[in-house]
């Protein structure tokens, strides 16, 4: 327990030092708050606009979570298919890699044309960004089943479905969660990209409009809230991971 507190303390101290140095720097050199607002400026903007920020966080949160959820729901079964069939693997995997190499920022305008300015287009971009790490890690996990466990199942004449449900899938869970943690932070980026390209709400939208009005403290406040959103979602996935795989924590 003591260890946990201490481990949490280190990054907090690090952040405090950086924030302090930043504050001192902007104060000492009289840096314009349009160029670089001080931490205090950002804090004040954050408090003053708390209602607005909270309101704009909601659509971004929804876009991210729904896009991520879609990536999980489609990505995991897709990876299972790719990993269990040689034909599918040879057919789909190269296509998957190829699509991944297309920059998502470049697709965003096209997605907007298809899905409009509303939430759908952001959700789709968040999904596209989150999909890849989930598929790749799940597929890797499916292939990494310990040979001994496969042999054990085979020696008992387990069916393919039994092997999948009772051996391969649980064995792949640590990989799946590793992919999901990367994916959920990427999904935030996807949602913001979508909002940048065209939107009427969301933290990305707020950031852009604050920036265009040279309200840098508010733009930075939106940025801080975005990071907080990413951290909270990452922590949520980690919590689910612990709940689903309590054994992984016991050493």
């Amino acid at each position, binding site marked *: 327990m003591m260890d946990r507190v201490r481990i949490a303390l280190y990054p907090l101290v690090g952040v405090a030092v950086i924030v302090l140095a930043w504050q001192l720097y902007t104060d000492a050199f009289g840096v314009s708050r349009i160029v670089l607002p001080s931490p205090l400026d950002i804090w004040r903007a954050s408090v003053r606009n708390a209602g607005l920020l909270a309101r704009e966080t909601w659509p971004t949160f929804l876009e991210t979570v729904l896009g991520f959820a879609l990536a999980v729901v489609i990505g995991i079964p897709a990876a299972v298919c790719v990993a269990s069939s040689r034909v599918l693997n040879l057919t789909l995997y190269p296509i998957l890699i190829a699509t991944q190499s297309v920059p998502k920022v470049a697709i965003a305008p096209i997605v907007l044309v298809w899905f409009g300015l509303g939430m759908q287009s952001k959700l789709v971009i968040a999904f596209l960004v989150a999909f890849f790490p989930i598929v790749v890690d799940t597929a890797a996990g499916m292939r990494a089943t310990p040979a001994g466990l496969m042999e054990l199942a085979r020696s008992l004449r387990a069916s393919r479905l039994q092997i999948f449900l009772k051996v391969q899938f*649980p064995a792949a869970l640590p990989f799946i969660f590793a992919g999901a943690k990367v994916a959920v932070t990427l999904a935030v980026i996807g949602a913001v990209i979508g909002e940048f390209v065209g939107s009427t709400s969301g933290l990305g939208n707020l950031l852009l409009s604050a920036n265009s009005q040279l309200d840098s403290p508010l733009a930075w406040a939106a940025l801080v809230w975005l990071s907080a959103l990413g951290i909270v979602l990452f922590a949520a996935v980690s919590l689910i991971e612990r709940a689903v795989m309590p054994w992984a924590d016991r050493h």
Partner: protein
Amino acid sequence: MSAQVARESAAGAFGRFKNVRQVFAQPGQPGMVAIDSISFDLQPGTLISLLGPSGCGKTTFLRIVAGLIRATGGVVEINGRAVTEPYADFGIVFQQPNLMPWRTVLDNVLFPMEILGRRDAAAVARARELLVSVGLAGFERSHPAQLSGGMQQRVALCRALIHAPRLLLMDEPFGALDELTRMEMQDLLLRIRTTTGATALFVTHSISEAVYVSDMVAVFSKRPAVLADYIEVPLAYPRSADVRYSPAFTDLQYRASRALGITR
């Protein structure tokens, strides 16, 4: 070098192995002969050790009997049935415990029953009994990561016994354990055999282990493995650690080590 010893016998053998041969294909080269013309019989209720140097093909032989690989040639029959694929009424203990980290000890032991669709109250009761018999009472709800290597291998032993298999196949099950744990496990195996009367094949590269736990020791030569000797172990049961220091035990060890080419 040493004469090929083959025990042919009697009708009513539980396992019959005749001229078993395994050749592994190698791309662009002639096949590698892993084992060649291995013949012996396995009587019901007996334990035969397969003793040989590392990499000699004794594990290959066990895998053939388990139905995990098919022999290139020869006859492999268990209970009058040619072994061509795994049979669910075999219990296998591997070199590694191969436990599932996500399952509790009890659920690991019950895994075969789940696969066979026979996980019921009686199975759970039997799993608990087995765990008690190997000294793991109170660990039913632990996870494998919380157990030592020896404890994990005991769980694996329970898992191999849970469906009351007709044949127990053990592939150097104690090879990864320290000397003291190993000796404990050998005594445990002897106890289990008296209670279950299981017929078993036991792969090991330890001469003393082979002599201590077996009714017969089949000595495999270096690759390609042939049967270098087939030694009957007439030591009385129940066996205890004292027997290790008897002249009869030493003689048997000496004979086995001669067959292995260690002593002349």
